[in-house]
């Protein structure tokens, strides 16, 4: 599915990723954990092609295609989706209009027929319901005046509409109360299938109680320093990250 080799990247002249390796197979859920400033969010942003995140070495191939050469919108059309940690507002552009433009362009790339307005509206309403957002949110500006939890659920709704093959959730749990967290987790779990992979970037083990990962990786100082099964998350919860960094430093 996605193969990341020796990925190096910098932001404003500061090296953040320093040779990251990660392989994710179809249908797998990988959690990325790690201390603040380790490069967790950078990974998602680099893969999605955010401006000002400069790749200085390595490769990332999605379904055999090197995505690092593509424009961000092309990566999105290839099936890469990034759920933002801080979704921005776009005042005046309605959620529905935004979604339609988005879904149209992605479907076109995938050689699928465009949905007509009736089908589209029906689908969008369904997905709203699935993430517990009132359908009136479709008429509002993109994220305009949404609460933190509503923004995150809106991200999830977009993900459901686009049906990506690789979903990157960047600290989707931050700022969510426990009820909202469950809604988001249920939504993600409902989307899990054998052809779709997830990278779940999180600070806390809590989210992984609800979205149970196949693998857990610890990212520290721009590299993956430890990988394991879901039990690794519990160990981290107990011991913190300090022991890993020491272990890594010693090695």
């Amino acid at each position: 599915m996605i193969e990341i080799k020796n990925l190096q990247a910098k932001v404003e002249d500061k090296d953040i990723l320093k040779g990251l390796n990660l392989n994710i197979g179809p249908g797998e859920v990988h959690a990325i954990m790690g201390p603040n400033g380790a490069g967790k969010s950078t990974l998602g942003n680099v893969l999605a092609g955010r401006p000002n995140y400069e790749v200085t070495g390595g490769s990332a191939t999605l379904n055999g295609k090197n995505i690092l050469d593509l424009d961000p919108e092309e990566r999105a059309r290839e099936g890469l989706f990034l759920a933002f940690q801080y979704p921005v507002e776009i005042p005046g552009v309605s959620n529905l209009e935004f979604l339609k433009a988005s879904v149209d362009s992605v479907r076109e790339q995938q050689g699928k027929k465009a949905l007509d307005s009736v089908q589209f509206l029906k689908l969008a309403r369904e997905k709203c319901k699935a993430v517990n957002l009132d359908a009136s949110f479709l008429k509002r500006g993109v994220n305009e005046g949404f609460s933190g939890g509503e923004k995150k659920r809106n991200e999830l709704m977009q993900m459901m509409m686009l049906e990506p093959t690789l979903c990157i959730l960047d600290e989707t749990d931050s700022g969510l109360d426990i009820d909202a967290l469950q809604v988001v987790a249920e939504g993600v779990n409902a989307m899990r299938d054998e052809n779709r992979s997830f990278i779940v970037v999180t600070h806390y083990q809590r989210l992984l109680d609800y979205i149970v990962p196949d693998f857990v990786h610890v990212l520290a100082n721009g590299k993956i320093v430890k990988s394991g099964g879901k039990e690794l998350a519990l160990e981290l919860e107990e011991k913190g990250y300090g022991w890993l960094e020491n272990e890594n430093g010693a090695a």
Partner: protein
Amino acid sequence: MATNAEIEQQIAGNEYKAGFISDIESETLAAGLTEDTVRFISAKKGEPEWMTEWRLKAFRQWLEMETPEWAHVNFPKIDYQEISYYSAPKSMEDGPQSLDEVDPELLAVYDKLGIPLHEQMALAGIAVDAVFDSVSVATTFRDKLEEAGVIFMPISEAVHKHPELIKKYIGSVVPVRDNYFAALNCAVFSDGSFVYIPKGVRCPMELSTYFRINEAKTGQFERTLIIADEGSHVSYLEGCTAPMRDENQLHAAVVELVALDDAEIKYSTVQNWYPGDKEGKGGIYNFVTKRAIAHTNAKVSWTQVETGSAVTWKYPSCILKGDNSIGEFYSVALTNNFQQADTGTKMIHLGKNTKSTIISKGISAGKSSNAYRGLVRMNPGAEGARNYTQCDSLLLGDKCAAHTFPYIESKHPTAVIEHEATTSTVSDDQLFLCQQRGIDTEKAVSMIVNGFCKEVFKELPMEFAVEAGKLLEISLEGSVG
């Protein structure tokens, strides 16, 4: 990766779609402006003595006046002797008696502009008056309007057919001496539209005028007068284009609206005069005076979408004379490359409980400068008057400028005035969100800009709202495929 820098590149590559020059034989008056020029124009129109005198008086006053320099725009001094003040397509010499007699070349020009007169007659149900250079070439739907008692004709014709209305109202809203460009217009105006809606009549269709400057080195000085008699209602739309030429051309129009008691006038403009090229060469100087007077319980609404012209100087205004009268101003002004716009409105509250609303959206791109200038004045008699102003600027790129010059004068303690203003940019984060969802930068910018203008577009008649959205898209369209 698309950044703001990239958008800038894209929008710099815009192309003016109405920039063709039509090969039509014209009769054009030699450049220069003297009393003889004024007499010539008046004679050409076969005007009665009183009209000629009115023009000459205006001309003499104009000679004593000075170009206003307070606007936030820069342009070289205009040599008024270098301009031709009259140009008419030659085949119009005897004047067309019906649409069938109009030069097919000329009609083809309008087709190219997307204003097929025939089609409009058949389908849209919109009555169109088209002003080409200096003369009005076709007024459609006249019969149907006549049935309703509506008068819609070139103002040159109205001078002959309805002299009492012209005499009474011309210069009554915008006095001859109002300003330099208005005085010039009074002296040399060539044609324009005249509308009269009788008492209690709701005009059965949208009225519309398309203006086009074709001849080189000519100025266009059209004059529009709309009178809505008591309790009547009319919606009017004007559109404007001009060919691409290297030299600047002058457009100094005057529009006067009279809304008598309980009447309502809605006046919409889609202005797309040639803005000059990417280096700022050429383009129209658009110096326009538009003003309305609203009597008791009357309502006047100005909606404008301004995307063209090299320099715009324009303040559609309302004098809220009657009690309970309402004035509205909805504006989208987009400037790109080296365009300069200084535009806004004046709301003069004279009557009791008068209300005004101003919604202004300025979009600056390239190296352009975009200024909102607005006056809200509550006179001593304006008891209980209210104004709400919202003035938003959107900047695309970091080489453009937006300015806001609000003037607020309140001479009545019960008057309420609200003013809100914002300035924003399209952020890299917003663009990235769009891109991450598969939407390319060009489409994203267009969506965001259209979203920014939504409040104004919804005031336009439906089919023109779509056109306005497209026009913005074209004005910002990039060369990136």
